[in-house]
Every structure is written in structure tokens, then in C-alpha cells.
């Protein structure tokens, strides 16, 4: 196709957004003949599903005067047959998009009549929100005659690629995540080995020397045989001086090989242990920086296995197996050189089975690698069962499901066994085959050697030397073949570690961070959207929270309250729109600096293993004892802490056993108080405790809230009596905003809920909202 650059006459004036980037070549030739003079392409969207939801390629195009739909017929020939539908802009045209289970649907309405609909799945760079906006802008501009307003663009915080307001994910950065890690994973370990390069070099030189030393003894057998033993058999007396010299040489070389071997192993083991430790630390550090999204998709057992046992396996591989292997390779090369220098013909015969064995190793390597990867996965399956069951042991016991859990574990174990069995089948065949080849090789050398001796081409001494060399040589080949399995194990371990290391946090650190000196705590959320998988959880949400204001978030579970809070904490990044603190986008603030301004109190407080004082000071490890006590007092935790046997030094476990829910909650409140944050987030902080405790916690919270920007999620409205404004959410959107009195006056969802709770009826917010919508329906019908 030669029509490459015919359209982009106007492309320079367009902002470089995905939907207005150059049309793919395939479409350009199709689209071009259908465009009228002075008609400009403003945006396009590839539609990859037809009405029957079959995968085909269609195109929707927005120009400055109409919406055009190109639908090629079945044959994808060079001159495709295209049917074209056009919708010239007119008032009352509206484009609506919704999605379900990964399938997006665009519908074109005129008044309430649907005149067209298209389905597509999300491909890498389609931004339909942007497409709809373009449609609206072009449509309005076409009808009114006013030009389309120019949009402000904001560059990607990471790579400075210009982004528009709707486009949140940078197409440049996000495509990087899709590239799979290289298969030469083990070589990537060099990054960790680099700091130790001099030690490694020293180790390598020692290895060379020690290997050379081990090759001296067989060489000494030649004169021993030819100059001493055979002449003796022919009646020449033994030359004791020569024998002494030769035996001394044997002993000396053995001693030399011993000392060199010892120092090389020691140095290299030392280095590899350090590489392993670095690998573990760096992986763990990287893991901690990943967003909550990553942890949501991974199971604890699997991650623990990766950082713990996999890195250890790599370490053993480096210090033991790789070292042996390198020594073996050196030995083979040196031996081959010596053999060729003694007698090229016999050397050729001796080395003949070598390529054969190498080929066999290669064949088996592939089979074993996939097998070992499989074993790894199965192994983490086994540990996942453990990680699931042990924390949930109370549920298991309460429902008397020990037998079921045991069989689940047994099943995983069986799977493990089956995979191992399959691998062992190949593996067990492998070693004996190598041994067999070794024997055959020896046989070959014997036969050829005897033939050569009979022709007087070589001496008996040379044959014995050869036999001595190759018996070493072949045993090394045998052990070298073992490297295959360990290398594969280490490589798959390395791959799984690099899987973590290669994972780019979906909450990236800004490249040009902005620092806020004093934070007043004003939060602005502008047309924020967030998708979790294929579900839109937050849709086009706008909210401004003034410094020091307390906002109560109300809504049934699944309405997006917790997600909104997670977005404010930047546990996730918004997929559309922006959130800013004091007028600065939170994406351009350094993450940890930003989060230091946030105090978070969760429904299920998490206490780490350690003393109560350490737990309170978790966010500020250098806090003084006086500060800790002040925080505990303010959190109404001081008194009960003093009642514990060791006071502030009492140890609490990971789930804080020994403390009641309310007590744990007050410790977590003290923890939030201690860092003195400007923004406070209370996520159902009192939901899991009884009314009496709630009052206690409420008092603590009142101290905490004072003077801070607070966002509180609560099911019980009584906990929100201090809120300046209440925000009622439903299905990811804000339904009502106002203070208590206003919302009561407007008699909406909040009014009903309050009435119900005031009457002390156990009413769910869900019912209130549904009643309201039914009431609205009735009113509108």
C-alpha cells in the first residue's frame, strides 16, 4: 500500500491523543475516497465486533461534519468492499457508551430512539471516553458554527508524553508493561553480580589455576609408563631418581590443586551468598513499592515462596552448580587441548561422543525446563492452600471442614506428585544414558588405541594418559549434564523473581516531584473515574473538600466509597480525571511524602508483631515515649494499655490477639494521631464494634478529627453527626451532597435513611435507595 501519508495534512494541529493519531494504513486507503473536500478526521475508533459479536474489523470515524461507520465485507482483499453509514451532525444526536464483562457498547441516540449501536472489546489504545467527547464537541461546533475549544494538555508524569484530561494512562508507558521478560533471565542476574566483579575475577583466575593443576597428574603418567614401567618390563632397571621426581610432581600438583580449589570455592561462595542477599532485599523493596492492585491479584504464599525459597535456590545455584559447571567447561577445554597436542588422531576419536552428548543435553533441557516451571507453580499451589487455611483456621474448625481442607491439600500434593513423576521419567532416563555413552566412548578409545599401538603410532604411556584423561573427562560430562536441571530450576526461579522486579508499579513515582511545604488539606476531585478490572467502580466524580472540613461518605456497600478513599490515598491511580491536594495533582507528589499527610483508620485494624508502643509509633518510629502516651491518651487507649501486664511494652501478635476489637481500634487511632496528619480517613472505623465501645471510640475519634480534613465512611449515621457535609454515593456516583439539615429538608435518600435509623428500625441503606428509585419511577410514570 502506497497511500501512507495522505491524510495527516491537518494532523499537526491535533493534540497527539490515541484517537486522533494517524489512522492505520489499512484504513487510510479505505477511508480516503469517502471523505469530502475540507473534511477533517478528528478521531477514530476501531470497532472489533460485529452484531453477532464476531471478531471483525470496523471503523468509526469522527470528522468535522459527521460520524461515519465503515464496515468492510468479509473478504480482506487489497480492494475491500466497504459499506459506509454516515450520520451527519444534527441536534439531539447523542453517543452513549457502557460496558459489561469487557465488552463495550456505543449507542447512538436521536432523542430517545436508538439509531445505531456498535460493540467492541478494549484494545490497547482505544479511549472511548475521549471519542465521545470529541463527538460532542464536533457535533456542537458543527451545529452552532463555533470552533471547538482548545484543550489544555498535561504531560505524562513519567515520560512527558502529552496527555489530555480524559486520557489518564500514558500509552507510551503502559505499553512497556506488555513486553514479556527475556528468556535469558539468568544473565540478568549480572545486575546483582556487578558490585562484586573484582572478587568474581579473582575467583575465576583461581579457578583457571586450580583446574590446570588437576590436569598435571595424568600427564605425568606418560613418562611414568614409557620411561619407567615398560623399560623395566623389557629388563631395564628402575630409575629411582626419575620415579621420585615424577611422584613428587604428582604430590605437588595434588597439593597445589587442593589449596587453589579451596580458595576459589571460598571466594565464590562468599560472593554468591551476597548476591543472593541483595537479590532478596531488592525484590522485597520493589514488592513493597508496588500498588495495592498487584497485591490484590497475588496470593501471599506465592509471593513468600518467590522471595524466600527461590532466591535461595538461585544462591545455591551460583555458589555450587554454576561454579562446578564453569570448572568442568574449563577442564574440558584444557583436556581437549592437551589431548590434541599429544596425538590429534586419538584425540579426535576420544572427543567423538562429545557432540552427541551435548545434543542429548540440549534435547532434554527443553523438556526439563517446562517441567521445572510447572513444579514451581504446583509448589506455590501447595503453599497457597496452607496460606489460605491457617489464617482461616477458626472458620475451618467451626464448620468442621478439616477433612475437606485436608483433601484439598492432598489434592494439591497429588498434583505436585503427578508433575514430579512426569519429570522424573525423563530425568531418570537421562543420567544412565550419559553413563552408557561414557562407557561406549571408553571402549572406542581402547579399540582405537590398541590399533594405533599395534601400528606403533603411539606408546602405551600415551594410551594410559588418554584413558586417565578421558575417564575424568567423561565423569565431568556426566556431572555437567546435571547442571541442566539445576540451571533450569534456577532460571525459572530467576524468572519468577524478575516477574516481580519487572512489574512496574501502577502507581508510579513522579519523575519531576513537586514538594509541598505546608499542607492545608484541600482536596479536589475532578471528573475522577476508576475501573477495577472490567468494572467501572467510580464514574465521573467531582468533589471539593475544604481544609479542615469533615465529609461523611454514605452509601451501601459496593457504591464506591472505599474505592474513593483508596484513590485519595493513592493506593490506586484514577483511570480518568484527577485528584489534587492544595491544587497540586497528587500524582506529581512523591508517594511517601504525600501519604505522610494521611492518617488512615480502617475497619479491621492491623497490628504488627511487637509491643503496643511500637505499634502506636509505626508511622513515626522516632516518636518519644511522651508523644506515644499523649497519642494513646487522646485515643482513649491509655487506661486499658496500663491495665495490661506489661503496659506499653505488652507484645501483640499479627492479629492483635489478647485485645478486643475496640482496643485494637483505639491503638490504630493512636497510631493515626501520632503522625499528626492533615488529612484523616476513617473507613468504617466503628463498624465492627458494639455500641458501648463505639461511644468510647467516638470520643477518641472526635479528638482525632479536630482541625483536620476528614473523610469518614460510616454505615451508622450517628457517627457522622459532626460532619460538615454528607456525600451520598450510589453506583460510583454522588447522588446527594449537603449538610444534615439540607439533606433532611430535601427528603431524599438520606432523609429516609435517617428517619429509619431514628426510629431505631434496622434499615439498610440499600432499601432506602431502592425505595426512593421506585418512588421516583412512580412519580415519573
Amino acid at each position: 500500500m502506497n497511500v501512507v501519508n495522505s491524510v495527516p495534512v491537518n494532523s499537526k494541529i491535533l493534540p497527539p491523543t490515541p484517537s486522533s493519531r494517524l489512522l492505520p494504513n489499512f484504513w487510510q486507503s479505505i477511508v480516503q475516497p469517502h471523505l469530502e473536500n475540507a473534511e477533517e478526521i478528528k478521531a477514530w475508533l476501531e470497532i472489533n465486533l460485529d452484531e453477532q459479536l464476531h471478531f471483525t474489523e470496523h471503523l468509526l470515524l469522527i470528522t468535522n461534519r459527521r460520524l461515519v461507520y465503515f464496515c468492510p465485507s468479509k473478504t480482506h482483499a487489497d480492494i475491500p468492499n466497504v459499506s459506509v453509514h454516515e450520520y451527519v451532525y444534527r441536534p439531539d444526536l447523542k453517543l452513549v457508551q457502557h460496558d459489561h464483562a469487557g465488552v463495550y457498547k456505543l449507542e447512538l441516540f436521536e432523542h430517545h430512539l436508538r439509531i445505531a449501536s456498535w460493540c467492541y472489546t478494549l484494545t490497547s489504545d482505544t479511549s472511548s471516553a475521549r471519542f465521545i467527547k470529541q463527538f460532542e464537541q464536533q457535533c456542537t461546533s458543527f451545529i452552532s458554527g463555533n470552533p471547538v475549544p482548545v484543550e489544555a494538555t498535561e504531560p505524562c508524569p513519567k515520560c512527558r508524553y502529552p496527555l489530555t484530561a480524559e486520557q489518564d494512562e500514558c500509552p507510551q508507558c503502559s505499553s512497556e508493561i506488555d513486553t514479556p521478560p527475556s528468556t535469558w533471565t539468568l544473565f540478568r542476574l549480572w545486575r546483582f553480580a556487578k558490585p562484586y566483579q573484582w572478587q568474581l575475577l579473582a575467583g575465576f583466575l583461581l579457578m583457571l589455576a586450580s583446574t590446570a593443576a588437576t590436569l598435571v597428574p595424568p600427564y605425568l603418567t606418560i613418562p611414568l609408563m614409557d620411561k619407567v614401567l615398560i623399560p623395566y618390563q623389557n629388563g631395564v632397571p628402575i630409575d629411582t631418581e626419575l620415579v621420585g621426581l615424577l611422584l613428587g610432581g604428582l604430590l605437588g600438583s595434588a597439593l597445589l590443586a587442593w589449596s587453589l580449589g579451596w580458595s576459589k570455592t571460598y571466594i565464590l561462595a562468599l560472593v554468591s551468598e551476597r548476591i543472593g542477599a541483595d537479590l532478596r532485599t531488592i525484590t522485597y523493596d520493589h514488592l513493597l513499592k508496588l500498588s495495592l492492585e498487584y497485591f490484590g491479584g497475588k496470593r501471599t504464599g506465592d509471593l513468600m515462596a518467590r522471595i524466600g525459597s527461590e532466591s535461595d535456590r538461585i544462591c545455591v545455584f551460583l555458589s555450587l552448580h554454576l561454579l562446578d559447571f564453569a570448572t568442568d567447561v574449563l577442564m574440558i577445554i584444557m583436556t581437549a587441548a592437551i589431548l590434541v597436542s599429544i596425538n590429534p588422531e586419538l584425540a579426535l576419536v576420544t572427543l567423538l561422543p562429545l557432540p552427541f552428548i551435548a545434543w542429548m543435553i540440549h534435547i532434554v533441557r527443553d523438556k526439563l525446563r517446562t517441567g521445572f516451571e510447572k513444579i514451581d507453580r504446583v509448589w506455590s499451589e501447595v503453599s497457597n492452600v496452607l496460606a489460605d487455611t491457617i489464617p482461616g483456621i477458626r472458620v475451618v474448625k467451626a464448620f468442621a471442614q478439616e477433612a475437606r481442607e485436608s483433601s484439598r491439600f492432598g489434592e494439591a500434593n497429588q498434583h505436585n506428585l503427578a508433575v514430579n513423576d512426569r519429570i522424573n521419567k525423563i530425568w531418570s532416563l537421562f543420567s544412565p544414558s550419559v553413563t552408557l555413552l561414557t562407557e561406549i566412548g571408553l571402549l572406542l578409545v581402547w579399540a582405537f588405541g590398541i590399533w594405533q599401538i599395534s601400528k606403533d603410532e603411539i606408546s602405551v604411556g600415551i594410551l594410559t594418559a588418554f584413558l586417565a584423561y578421558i575417564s575424568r573427562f567423561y565423569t565431568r560430562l556426566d556431572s555437567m549434564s546435571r547442571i541442566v536441571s539445576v540451571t533450569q530450576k534456577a532460571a525459572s526461579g530467576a524468572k519468577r523473581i524478575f516477574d516481580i522486579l519487572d512489574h512496574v508499579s501502577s502507581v508510579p513515582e513522579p519523575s519531576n516531584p513537586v514538594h509541598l511545604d505546608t499542607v492545608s488539606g484541600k482536596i479536589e476531585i475532578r471528573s475522577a473515574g476508576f475501573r477495577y478490572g472490567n468494572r467501572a467502580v467510580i464514574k465521573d466524580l467531582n468533589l471539593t473538600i475544604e481544609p479542615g472540613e469533615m465529609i461523611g461518605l454514605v452509601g451501601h456497600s459496593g457504591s464506591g466509597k472505599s474505592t474513593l478513599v483508596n484513590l485519595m490515598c493513592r493506593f490506586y491511580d484514577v483511570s480518568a480525571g484527577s485528584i489534587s491536594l492544595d491544587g497540586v495533582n497528587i500524582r506529581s507528589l512523591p508517594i511517601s511524602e504525600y501519604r505522610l499527610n494521611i492518617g488512615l483508620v480502617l475497619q479491621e485494624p492491623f497490628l504488627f508483631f511487637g509491643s503496643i508502643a511500637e505499634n502506636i509509633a509505626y508511622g513515626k518510629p522516632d516518636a518519644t515515649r511522651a508523644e506515644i502516651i499523649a497519642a494513646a491518651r487522646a485515643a482513649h487507649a491509655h487506661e486499658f494499655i496500663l491495665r495490661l501486664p506489661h503496659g506499653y511494652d505488652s507484645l501483640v501478635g499479627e492479629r492483635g490477639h489478647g485485645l478486643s476489637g475496640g482496643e485494637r481500634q483505639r491503638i490504630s487511632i493512636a497510631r493515626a494521631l501520632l503522625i499528626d496528619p492533615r488529612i484523616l480517613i476513617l473507613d468504617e472505623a466503628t463498624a465492627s464494634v458494639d455500641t458501648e465501645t463505639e461511644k468510647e471510640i467516638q470520643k477518641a475519634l472526635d479528638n482525632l478529627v479536630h482541625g483536620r480534613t476528614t473523610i469518614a465512611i460510616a454505615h451508622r449515621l450517628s457517627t457522622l453527626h459532626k460532619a460538615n457535609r454528607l456525600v451520598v454515593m450510589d453506583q460510583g456516583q454522588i447522588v446527594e451532597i449537603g449538610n444534615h439539615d439540607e439533606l433532611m429538608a430535601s427528603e431524599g435518600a438520606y432523609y429516609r435513611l435517617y428517619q429509619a435509623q431514628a426510629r431505631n428500625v434496622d434499615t439498610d441503606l440499600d432499601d432506602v435507595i431502592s425505595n426512593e428509585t421506585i418512588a421516583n419511577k412512580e412519580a415519573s410514570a
Partner: protein
Amino acid sequence: MATINPNIDFTLARNVAGQLQFTDSDGIVFDNVNLVRAFPISAPDEGLSIISKEGHELAWISSLVDMPIQLKELIEAELAQREFMPEILRINQVSSFATPSIWDVVTDKGNTQLTLKAEDQIWRLKNNRILITDKNGVNFMINNLEQLDKHSRKLLDRFL
């Protein structure tokens, strides 16, 4: 719509906006209702719920079998649109055995590509069925692993 089945005291129709319109026994009309299968994978024909656009259940259909034919057709057409789960018939090629990996697949809906983000996006279900969720949340199904051709099975096996 005349109802033969006494259990069905509602009517379902398509409105001008192309949405499903539900009218209950009291004559109250709900626009833009959704049809949802309760067990879309393990028992697709067993339970079906009609959900209002606010997400509340309006009617429960325990089985599609004894439905009036007209209603059944409407429901099935709507479900076909909603439930997009291409069945993988063959895996032509995978870009790498390490994730993320881009797969070239043949499905009952035609040829396409899917991006597998991680191995744990492949779920082994009962009866050799496999559910694969791609990067964009589209679900792909393999109905019977055993019946897949050898080439595809070999490729898939590297991820299981």
C-alpha cells in the same frame, strides 16, 4: 404478551432505545433492565434474574425450558449480546512463555488476540474447563482441555 406459564406474571419487551423493558404484574414499567445468569459457568440454564438498572432483582426465572417461545427468544438474544465469552478453539501462537504474553487464538467468534497478564489469570474449572481472563477483562473459555488439538494443548500446558 400472553403468558402461558402461571409463574410468569410479567412482560418483557424491547423499547425504542433498544433496551429491555420490564412490566411487572402491577403494571409498573422498568426501562433498561438487565438479564443476569446466576451460574453463568457451572449451570448457565438454571437460574436467570431480571435486574433493574439500579441493581435490584425484579423477577427470577428458575429455568428457561418452560418459557413461552417469544419470551425465550428475546431473552436468549439479549443474553447473547451480554455474555461475551468466546470459546477458544485453537491457540495458534503465543508471543512468549513468560507473562505478559500475547496469544493468537481462533475462537468461535473468529480470530483474535488476547493478552495474558499473569498465569493466575487462567482458572482451572471442573470438568477440564478453563477460563482465561485477558488484560482487558474479556473472558475466554476452553470447554474441554482434552479436546483441544495437540499444538494448542502443548502451548497452554506451559502456562498451567
